[in-house]
Structures are given as C-alpha cells and as structure tokens.
C-alpha cells in the first residue's frame, strides 16, 4: 500500500504544472501519482522517481501544453514597443542623450574591435600562415643572449640540402631594399628582394599573369601589380624586358596581386632570383659562413603539426652553425631557431632567446581595455539616467500595478524599452563608425573596412547590442518593477537615502576614467614635444638624402659634387656609408690610451667623405672636421662627445686609437676633432658613441645641402637637371632628412592621437550623462527651488547649492584618478631614457579642467532651474 514517507519529486511536479494546461492538472496529477505508487510497489524509490520524470517529459505534447496564445503575446510586445517609443518621443532630450551616448560608445568600441581584429589577423593573407617561420640565430653578445635575423648564405644552402627532409621550402632572401626598375625611359625605385625561386609558392602569391614558377630562370623577375601598372599600363607585361639597378637585364615572368598592408611582406614589390644576385655580387656565393646579411624563411611540410612542428625542427637544426662559426667559444644556449609567422607581428621581441610580446601586443590589450571602458561608460550613462528617472516613473509603475499588471510584464516593458534604445543606438553607431572609419584608418595607419559581408560581424554586433540592452536595462527593469503600488500612489513612497549611492559611484567611475585619460593625453603630447625639442647635433633644414648604391653612381661622385655646386643652389654635397637617421654599423675592438683591457665597448662606426661635416652641419667642439687639404686626414678620425666620455680622454686631439682589424683603410688613427652628439637613432635614447672615418670612395648614401638662401622649390629642379644629365638611368629619388627624422615620432604621435581621440569621447560621453542627470535633478527639485526662492534665496545661492553635489563627485574622481594616472604614466615614461617629468601642474590642470567642464555642463541646467518663477513651479497641483 501507499508508503507515506515517499513522495513524487516536487520539482518534477512543479515543472509539469509550469507547462501543463490548467484544466488537465487534476486528472494528470492523479494519474501520475497513481502510477508513481504503483511503480513503487515493484521497484526502488529511485526508479519510481525516474519513471515519474519520464512520464512528465512524455506530457510535453501539443495537446497538453498551455495555450501559448501567440497573437496575444504579439499584441503585448507591440504594446511594449509602442509605449517605449512614445516614452522616447516624450522626452526627446533624454532620448537623444541616451541614444547618442550609447551610439558613440558602441561606435568607438566597434572601431577598436576592428583594430584589434586587424592586428590579430596579421599575415593571414598567406595560405601557409601556420607553417611558415623565419630562421633566427641566438648569439651571446657582450654577455647578453641576442637574437638576430641576419644569416649566412651557407646556412640556407645547408638547410636546403642536408636538412631538406625537415622542410617543404627553405627560401633565402636579401634584406628588403629599394631597387631601381627601368623600362626604356620609365624608371623608378621600388622595394624588392632577391629570393630563391620557391618564394612565390611559399608566400602563396596570387598570380595575375604568369605562374608561381616564374623565378626558375636566372634572368627573370616577378613584380607586383602596382609596379606592372606603372611600367606597362594595362598591357600584358609577360616577356617584357626590364633592367634592375642599371645592370641586370631580366624578363618579366609573372605579376602578382600586391600583398596587403597587414602582411610582413607588404613592401615586397619586386622578386628577383637569388641566382641573379649571386652572379652580380661576385664577392659572395652560396657557401659563405662569415658574412651575416641574408634572411632565411622556411616552411614546414604539410604533415607537420603547426603547434609542435616548429619546436621540433628548431631542436634538430639548433647547432647547425656550430662547426662553421669563426668564434673560439660556442655556448650551449646559442644556436638556430624557427620563429613562426603567427608570432612575427605581436611577438617580435626576443628576451633570452625566446620570442615575447612586443609593444603592439601591449597596445592590443590596452585598446581592448579602453574599448570596453568606453562602452561601459556609455552603459553607465544609460543606467544612471534610467534609475534617476525612476521616481518619475514610479507613479506609472504604481498605476500599472493597480490596474493589474504583473511584475513580469513591467520587467518586459522596461527591458523592451532598453532594447529599443540599444538597437537604435546600434543603427546610429554603424553610421557613426562608417563616418569615422577613414579618419581612424588614417590615424592608425591601416586600411580597415567594416566587414558587412561577414555574418560573424553581425552576430557579434547583435550580441553586443543585446548584452548592452540587458546590462543597461537590468537595473531599471528589476528595480522599478519592485515598487509597492500602494505606497507609490499614496505618495508615501520615498526612495531611500542610499538609493542614489550607486548612481554616484557610477558618476565617480566615469569621471575617474575621463580625468585619467586627460592626464594621459597631455603627458604623451609633452613627451613627444620633449623629444622633438632635443638638440639633434646637425642641421636638418634643406638637407636632402638619397640612396647612391646603384652601379650607375660609381666614380661619378666628384663630377656630381662639382656640377651640383656650380648650380649655385647647393652649398655642399657628401656621401656616407649609412643614412643619417639610423645607427647601423657598430664595431667593438677599439683601443685607446688608458683603456682598461677588459673594457671593450661598441662604437657606431660611420664612414664619410670629407665634406660630410659641412653638409650635415655638425658642431665641432674641439679640434676640426675633415678637410681634403690635409693628406694626413686619411688616417684621422672624428669622435663624438659620447665617445669621448666612454674613452675618458682629457685631451683627445692628437691621441691615437687603434682598431683590431684593417677595416677602415688602416688600423691606427689620430683623433682630429670632437663633435656634438648627433641623434641618429631613437630620439628617446642617448646618442651612441661614434667614431667617424673619412673616405673618398663611393658610398651608399648621398647628402645634398641646399643653399640656405634658396628655396627648395627653386633648387630641386636644378638639382634634378644635374642628375638627369650625369646619371640618367637612376630616378632622382630624394627624401628630406627632416621628414625622415619626423618619422621617428610617428609611433608616439599615433598613440598621442589615439589617446586624444579616446579622451574626447570619454569626456563627451561622461558630460552627456552629467548633463542629463543635472537636468533631471533640477526638474525633480523644482518645488524645493521654488520654496527656497520664495524664502529669499538668490540665483547664485541656488546655483551653488545645485552644483555642489556634482562638484563633490568630480572632486572625488580627481583624488582617485590623479594618483592612478601618475603611477601608470610614470611607468610608461620610464621606458624612455630621455623623458619629460610629470609636473604637478599638469595633474592639477587636468583636475581643474574636469571641474570646469562639470560646472559648465551642470550650470546650464542649474541656472535654468534657479531662474524659474517660483509662482509657476509652486502653482502646479
């Protein structure tokens, strides 16, 4: 019989009643209970319960399920949205602020997400993305483990032969460099490389003409579409003859689609066969083991696992250099490794021989966080406004409840309103993002587009919209719907003293972020200015530079110099082995009087023609510069102040320094002069100690100083005429050193502009929220203001009273934001050796600025409220 202690599972019963038609409840429950106890007699309680659940799930049939009257529901939702829409129209100001703020936040978040996606999808253009790697080399250098990409040709040959079973392709490539490509009279220089013939296949180039095997013949070349357009227009370029660097005749065998900007090979516009390089550059061959000037790329075989393959092959090839190094000591941690393509962009830094995240990765994180914050700020506005207006809508809630509205219906009501706003904001945000995108691309140096054709884009956008609506609507929906109708309608309903606390916290949070961003923007700007104003040690004005490595320049330097000077628009011409704006060429192994034998620092070694000093306008602090008048100058050197400091010579002029090898035309040099440090490398780092050698041979970089009395527009055509006359086969491809130098600031300027952009948005969004909040508070306190006025309060007093609340909140934000910003920015500045200091003035100014903005925003509303005629405000009701 019926054992009283065992009952059917309650949860199952509740579940049943949730979906079961009400009129069936009695009979069904009865049947199920009978079944349960019937079952219990023959089997265990567990089995009986399980069977009970089974029976209940079997009642999930159309006939038994509650009548979901979709028509009624549809009407209900229609009503929700209609009411929501009317609410929007009724409060046009609030709605505008709500939707506008949210749209702005969403648009910014969208742009940032796009930017992050772009950064993460770098190099994915190449089909073999996850199997390509660059061969790198770990080497102990001055006690540190350094990782370098310069390789010897011998290694590439070894990997291609002995280790061919480990790779699908091994491709050696020269460093990217400008090469002159000429077709009859059309000539210009394009970045290109000499590579092994498998390169097009490995990089999966999309061929427009010809095939990927185009480089199999030594006298062939494949070019990018943009180059083909410039050379041949729309004609088919295949089998056309072109000339590279004025000396190599080749035939175009292929044209490929330009590699997009988000690939490391973006600037690969010309690919010529490595065999051609070897035939022209007889000073090297495929089996050199002491000249590190090549890059090597490798692709793993199709069967290799992209996750573990690189590590495994790295281990196999690690010590391949060991027997070929000319060094006496080879340490265990040195060796060859593979750097996978997927890590090239965001993990290009090496620490102790391992690739680690670089600054770009940091910015991906930073921007991601900022994007979320901006979106959060916008959501906070929305919540704030809604909760602030809750008292106003309390009556509505009361009446709705009194008429018979269920709490769930009110929740739906408020959620549908917030979804409506979120969706409208989403539509506007797309328009806004579209409008901002060209400018944002310019700012970030990218060519991004909104991926409208991508379903994931829409999916993510809608998901974000939905979450935003949910987040923004949850507080009003859950809080407002909980009001007790009796109290609300009776008028005894009071929002508690602490009801506004969350709202205040949100305002403080908003302003903390805004103030921190203001400070950040100012400091980034100051840092850039600080570095820009640093003395560079030479004169950039009117200084032109151009590469002179082409064979056509050989032996023409003197004639070029004379003719250029004869034009009268050029004051001096010089050549050097390296550009002015980098610090290539470093050597150790120098000796000078009084050197500690264990001290072997590295010097930046530059070789220049004697006119270099006059051309770049260096500042001699002791001795003199080079001169052709002194034959002894051939073994003289000029050092810079940093070098002098390193050497610690009291009286440097006339001292002798020695070099271990015979590189620079001798191994014993006399110091003839000391010059001020020239900033060739990073403007944020101290100048490297330099030793400058004279030479009268041809070198790779040409410098032309325009006569200061002539304008560039007059001088350039005359200079070009000389070039056309003397070296017709080479384009006059000059650059201003000024521009080159400014390029060093681009990364920081970009950060600065992005920071300014985010700051403006954050402030804008915060102010919108504050404005709406102030107007709401003013409206709510209309009666109070009226009574105060009747009792004799003046407008300034009222303004003070109403503004004080907000000022207090912003002050709190200042106290949080200033130390926070100081800490973060100070850390950032420490990464630069030459950096500005954060002055308290900036911090104070930011706080003060925030206060002023707050007062301006709030005052409009408070003064408006204070000016209302008390008769009007007190008469109502």
């Amino acid at each position, binding site marked *: 019989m019926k054992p009283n202690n065992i009952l059917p599972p309650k949860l199952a019963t509740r579940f049943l009643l949730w979906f079961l038609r009400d009129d069936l409840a009695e009979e069904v429950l009865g*049947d199920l209970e009978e079944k349960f106890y019937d079952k219990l007699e023959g089997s265990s309680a567990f089995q009986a319960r399980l069977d009970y659940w089974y029976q209940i799930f079997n*009642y999930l049939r159309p006939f*038994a399920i509650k009548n979901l009257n979709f028509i009624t529901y549809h009407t209900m939702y229609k009503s929700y949205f209609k009411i929501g829409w009317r609410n929007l129209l009724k409060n046009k100001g609030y709605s505008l602020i709500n939707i506008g703020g949210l749209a702005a936040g969403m648009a910014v978040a969208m742009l940032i997400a796009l930017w992050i996606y772009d950064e993460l999808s770098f190099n994915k253009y190449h089909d073999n993305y996850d199997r390509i790697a660059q061969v790198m080399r770990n080497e102990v250098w001055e006690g540190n483990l350094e990782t370098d990409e310069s390789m010897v040709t011998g290694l590439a040959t070894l990997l291609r032969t002995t280790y061919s079973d480990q790779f699908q392709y091994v491709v050696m490539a020269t460093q990217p460099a400008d090469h002159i490509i000429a077709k009859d009279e059309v000539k210009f220089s394009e970045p290109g490389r000499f590579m092994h013939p498998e390169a097009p296949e490995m990089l999966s180039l999309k061929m427009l003409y010809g095939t990927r095997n185009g480089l199999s013949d030594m006298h062939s070349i494949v070019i990018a579409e943009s180059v083909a357009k410039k050379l041949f227009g729309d004609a088919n370029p295949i089998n056309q003859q072109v000339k590279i660097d004025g000396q190599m005749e080749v035939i175009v065998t292929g044209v490929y689609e330009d590699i997009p900007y988000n690939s490391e090979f973006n600037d690969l516009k010309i690919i010529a066969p490595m065999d051609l390089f070897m035939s022209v550059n007889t000073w090297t061959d495929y089996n050199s083991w002491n000249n590190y000037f090549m890059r090597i790329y490798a692709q793993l075989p199709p069967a290799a696992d992209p996750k573990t393959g690189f590590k495994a092959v790295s281990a196999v090839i690690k010590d391949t250099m060991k027997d070929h190094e000319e060094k006496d000591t080879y340490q265990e941690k040195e060796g060859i490794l593979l750097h996978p393509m997927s890590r090239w962009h965001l993990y290009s830094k090496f620490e102790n021989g391992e690739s680690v995240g670089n600054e770009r990765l940091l910015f991906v994180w930073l921007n991601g966080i900022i994007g979320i914050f901006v979106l959060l700020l916008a959501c906070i506005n929305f919540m704030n406004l809604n909760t602030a207006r809750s008292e106003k809508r309390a009556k509505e809630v009361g009446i709705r409840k009194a008429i018979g509205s269920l709490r769930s219906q009110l929740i739906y009501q408020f959620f549908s309103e917030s979804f409506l706003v979120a969706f409208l904001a989403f539509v506007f945000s797309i328009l806004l993002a579209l409008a901002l995108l060209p400018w944002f691309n310019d700012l970030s140096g990218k060519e991004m587009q909104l991926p409208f054709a991508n379903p994931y884009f829409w999916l993510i956008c809608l998901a974000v919209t939905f979450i935003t609506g949910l987040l923004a609507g949850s507080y009003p929906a859950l809080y407002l719907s909980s009001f007790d109708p009796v109290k609300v309608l009776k008028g005894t309903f009071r929002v508690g003293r602490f009801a506004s606390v969350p709202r205040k916290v949100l305002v403080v949070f908003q302003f903390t972020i805004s103030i921190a961003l203001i400070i950040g923007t100012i400091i980034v700007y100051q840092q850039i200015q600080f570095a820009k104003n640093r003395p560079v040690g030479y004169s950039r004005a009117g200084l032109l530079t151009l590469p002179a490595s082409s064979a056509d320049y050989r032996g023409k330097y003197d004639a070029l110099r004379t003719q250029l000077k004869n034009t009268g628009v050029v004051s001096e011409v010089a050549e050097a082995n390296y550009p002015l704006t980098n610090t290539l060429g470093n050597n150790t192994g120098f000796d000078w009087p009084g050197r500690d034998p264990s001290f072997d620092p590295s010097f930046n070694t530059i070789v220049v023609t004697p006119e270099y000093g006059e051309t770049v306008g260096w500042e001699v602090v002791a001795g003199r510069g080079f001169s052709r008048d002194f034959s002894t100058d051939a073994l003289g050197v000029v050092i810079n102040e940093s070098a002098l400091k390193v050497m610690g010579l009291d009286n440097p002029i006339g001292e002798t320094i020695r070099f271990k090898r015979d590189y620079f035309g001798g191994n014993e040099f006399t110091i003839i002069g000391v010059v001020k440090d020239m900033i060739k490398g990073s403007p944020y780092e101290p100048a490297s100690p330099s030793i400058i050698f004279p030479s009268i041979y041809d070198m790779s970089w040409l410098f032309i100083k325009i006569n200061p009395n002539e304008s560039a527009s007059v001088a350039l055509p005359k200079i070009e005429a000389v070039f056309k006359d003397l070296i017709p086969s080479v384009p006059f491809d000059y650059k201003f050193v000024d521009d080159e130098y400014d390029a060093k600031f681009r990364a920081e300027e970009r950060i600065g502009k992005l920071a300014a952009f985010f700051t403006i948005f954050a402030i804008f969004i915060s102010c919108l929220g504050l404005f709406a909040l102030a107007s709401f508070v003013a409206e709510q306190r209309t009666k109070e203001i009226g009574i105060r006025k009747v009792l004799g309060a003046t407008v300034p007093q009222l303004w003070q009273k109403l503004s004080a609340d907000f000022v207090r909140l912003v002050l709190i934000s200042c106290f949080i934001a200033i130390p926070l910003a100081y800490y973060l920015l100070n850390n950032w500045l420490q990464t630069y050796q030459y950096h500005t200091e954060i002055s308290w003035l900036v911090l104070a100014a930011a706080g003060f600025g925030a206060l002023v903005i707050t007062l301006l925003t709030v005052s409009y509303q408070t003064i408006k409220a204070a000016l209302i005629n008390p008769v009007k405000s007190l008469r109502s009701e």
Partner: protein
Amino acid sequence: MKETRLGDFEEVILLLVGILGEEEAYAFKIAEEFESQTGRSVSIGAVHSTLSRLDDKGFLTSEMGKATAERGGRRKRIYTITAYGQRVLKEARDFKVSLWRQFPALGTDFGGQI
C-alpha cells in the same frame, strides 16, 4: 473538417476503453492495460494524448469521475465509447476482415467466426 480515420494505436486504445468499461477507463489504467495486453511499454502522456484526440474526433466522450484515496483525493477522467466510435471500430474490423478474406494463403480459414 473533422478527421475521421482511425489509426492503429488509436484502434487499440479505443478497444481498451471498451474492454475496461465504466469504472476503469481512465488514462493510467488504459496505459497499464495496454502494457499487459501487448507487452509493450507506453507512457501515460502518449495514451492521454491519443485519448484526447479520439475525444476530439467524437469516438469517445469523457467526464470527471469519483475521487479515490490513491490519487491524493483527485478525480479521474473516465472515457466511454460513443455510438459513432463503435461504428468506426466495426467498420475498421469489417474492412480488415474483408482484406483477410481476399488473402489467398489464409482466406478460407476465416469463415465468419467473428
């Protein structure tokens, strides 16, 4: 338009309602009877669903019966076959018998005992 065809499972359930009679023909008992007669298991929900469909088609009527203690004092819905239902059952049987008669291998064994 009302559905008047009788499915196989429906036919069995309809017959069971007739077999169980006045007192016993409610969903749980019908399901149990089905299990004991056929050896196949069936959920009460499935039986209930069929019963309500047969009700809709007019083959059955139902009314709430008496409450009993086993069911926590709840009443049960007792089903009875309508005249229309009986006629449909008969037609179904006659149709099948006529088919069996035309089946040469077994046709003659069937001499009108039913």
